[in-house]
């Protein structure tokens, strides 16, 4: 089975995330960058399927600046076999639709893909739309929010869990599956895996290499525009209420004033 995992390098959720003042895109230099945790789970799912199906291969696909190679290496050191990295300055500022279009082109450079896996929502953009968009553009079944995933012969089954409840979905391969944060606990890379990752092939593609139209990607092609952004205000000193026997009423009045109750 040929499994492709879509991964993204995101700012570490522990670091202070900022938008750059110029174009309101993510200020990548201001933060530590890591492989998104949800994508680690997608990689783990792929590795578990590989271990259960002899002869399988796991390919990691990432789109992002040069330093996204760190996230790719992490996935390779966990055990993925090879990677494709779309890296081109022109992709800066691409929105979800542009990302899906570009990823579909990159997937087109890979032959015989049976299953595309992804995290269901990146921890930075949080649109949660790319896996379904990729499936739509490829004309493949889309199985999202998977909490459990099994492949039996040419059929994929997922237990889909959302706020609305649990649904069991089945589709014929090839298909696109996005996983949620409950699907597994991702493994740690091993030292041997880290050394082996150095030697695994990583193909770097430009827009032209992947046959992507420059007009489909980048900030100018984005359907939405951020016109203004401000850092969240610092914590204020708060308001002191003197309790003269009516403390409870004063607190209630405060909460009403803040439209909290």
């Amino acid at each position, binding site marked *: 089975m040929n499994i492709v995992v879509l991964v993204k390098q995101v700012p570490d959720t522990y670091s*202070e995330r900022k938008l750059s003042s110029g174009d309101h895109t993510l200020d990548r230099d201001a933060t*530590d960058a890591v492989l998104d945790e949800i994508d680690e789970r997608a990689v783990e799912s792929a590795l578990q399927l590989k271990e259960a199906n002899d002869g399988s291969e796991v390919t990691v696909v990432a789109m992002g600046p040069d330093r996204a190679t760190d996230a790719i290496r*992490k996935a390779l*050191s966990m055990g993925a076999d090879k990677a494709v990295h779309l890296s081109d300055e022109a992709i800066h500022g691409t929105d979800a639709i542009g990302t899906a279009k570009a990823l579909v082109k990159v997937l087109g450079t890979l032959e015989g893909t049976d299953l595309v896996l992804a995290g269901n929502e990146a921890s930075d953009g949080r649109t949660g739309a790319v896996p379904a968009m990729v499936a739509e553009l490829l004309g493949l079944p889309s199985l999202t929010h998977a909490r459990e995933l099994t492949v039996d012969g040419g059929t994929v089954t997922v237990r889909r869990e959302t706020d609305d409840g649990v649904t069991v979905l089945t589709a014929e391969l090839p298909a696109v599956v996005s996983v949620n944060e409950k699907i597994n606990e991702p493994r*740690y890379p*091993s030292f*041997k895996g*880290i*050394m082996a990752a150095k030697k695994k092939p990583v193909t770097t593609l430009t827009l032209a290499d992947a046959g992507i139209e420059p007009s489909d990607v980048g900030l100018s092609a984005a359907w939405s525009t951020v016109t203004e952004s401000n850092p969240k205000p610092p914590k204020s000193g708060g308001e002191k209420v003197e309790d003269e026997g009516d403390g409870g009423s004063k607190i209630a009045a405060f909460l009403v004033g803040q439209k909290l109750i």
Partner: protein
Amino acid sequence: MHERNLILSRRDLEFLLHDWLRVEELTALPRFAEHSRETFDAVLELAADLATERFAPHNKRNDAEEPRFEEGRVVLHDEVAPALRAAAEAGLLSATMDESAGGLQLPHVVGTAVQAWFHAANVGTWAYAMLTVANANLLLAHAAPELVERYVPDMLAGRVHGTMCLSEPQAGSSLADITTRAEPRSDGTHVLTGTKMWISGGDHELGENIVHLVLAKVPGGPPGVKGISLFLVPKVLPDGTRNPVVLTGINHKMGWRGTVNTVLSFEGATGWLVGAEGRGLAAMFHMMNEARVGVGAGAAALAYTGYLKSLDYAKSRPQGRPAGAKNPSTPMVPIIEHADVRRMLLAQKAYAEGALALVLYCGMLVDTGERELLEVLTPIAKSWPSQWGLEANALAIQVHGGYGYTREYDVEQHYRDNRLNPIHEGTHGIQGADLLGRKVRTPGFEQLCARIADTAARAGSKELQQALDRLVEVTEILHAHPDAEERLANASVYLEAAGHIVVAWLWVDQALATGDRQDALARGKRAAAQYFLRFELPKVGPQLELLATLDRTTLDTEPTWL
């Protein structure tokens, strides 16, 4: 930028390893040719993740739920084994070892940084891994191939653990006086009888077996240390039966409570000789040097995490107003705004980062093969972080005020854990005698002085050069003195003075490595270097004057007067 946790600073490690020590240059050496900055960084990230997610969460539990002695066996709580298993599965235990032993030939300097994450996160659990690695290293260096094959792969995979059995109730620092006997059998094995004291990890059920490395005397051998041999004594014999190694008690300690410390009785236990007969102490000491730098690394790591926690507290705890503020209705300021709190934080930074720099530098010397310089630095790398790392932890408590004295906060545990480090693997007194009695007479001392002088010249640091000149003068005075007792009476003072000069050198060197950078890390390094030169290095002057006079106060004080 924010650090992900308060265990260690990833940014400082990056500075120390890459900007200061330039560890990537090691990849030019054939041993490290397969490595690159990429692999070093990935390994450190893995260590940070494991330490944060698997070790740190049960550090306080280790302290609160000591190992129990139940029906002749040791019971540990249930988070210790999975953490150790995760570390072993990641290949952590064999990382710096030869490829032929299943290792990855990671440079020792990077390995020291990896270990620092675990020391700082949870030394009580990590100690089991440290003991096993030290034991395996000793077997790889000295044991017969069949013993290595029988035990080492399982040890490195985390299935078998190790101990070091040196001390006895009547013989600790003075190992020549041990009485454990090893009687030879006709089949080449020995029968061991005796009692061993302070045996960390002496019994538990973390794995399938425990390999004890035991110092014992073969009857009829020469007296003193030349009669001491080293034996491998497994808890479970190769045929699956239990070797008579009996757990007779557990020692209850001030710190490191997660690491069970035992009294073991060898009651006719079967052992295999490791190395040549009569060479036991030499084999043990081959590893002891690395163990001593390892103790320093542990002390540095505990100092570091205490520093980060008190720094975090000082930034968030509002208390008092600036010295000039008269109006009590103005808001209180975080305590870091007070100069005296900043003094305590700067002192901790100077001790913790200075100590970490020292042990990483020693790791680098292992990798570059500069053994002579490493030999002279070893007693300092063991003692200086142990002494001043503990002081850093005392200051971390002080910054927390009353809260720091409660078990609700972490820093009092770090202090208690760190209090072991000036004691084990050779006390301060032993290290002082080693430095002044042996090491400063070796070529390594001249190499050390040349390095310090080079840094002082490049930085134009007169205070460092003057301190070095006085150290050399006083060393010559002491060497020329014929009475050994007088020469060595104040060896601990010598150790402390030499240690401060060495760390001052490393601070000046770190400051040089910041160049003209103006970011917070670089400015912090230069501030800590300045703190060390202004507040700490001057302490050395009176110590060296005392030594130069061959002061007899301690010698002349009769035991009955005390």
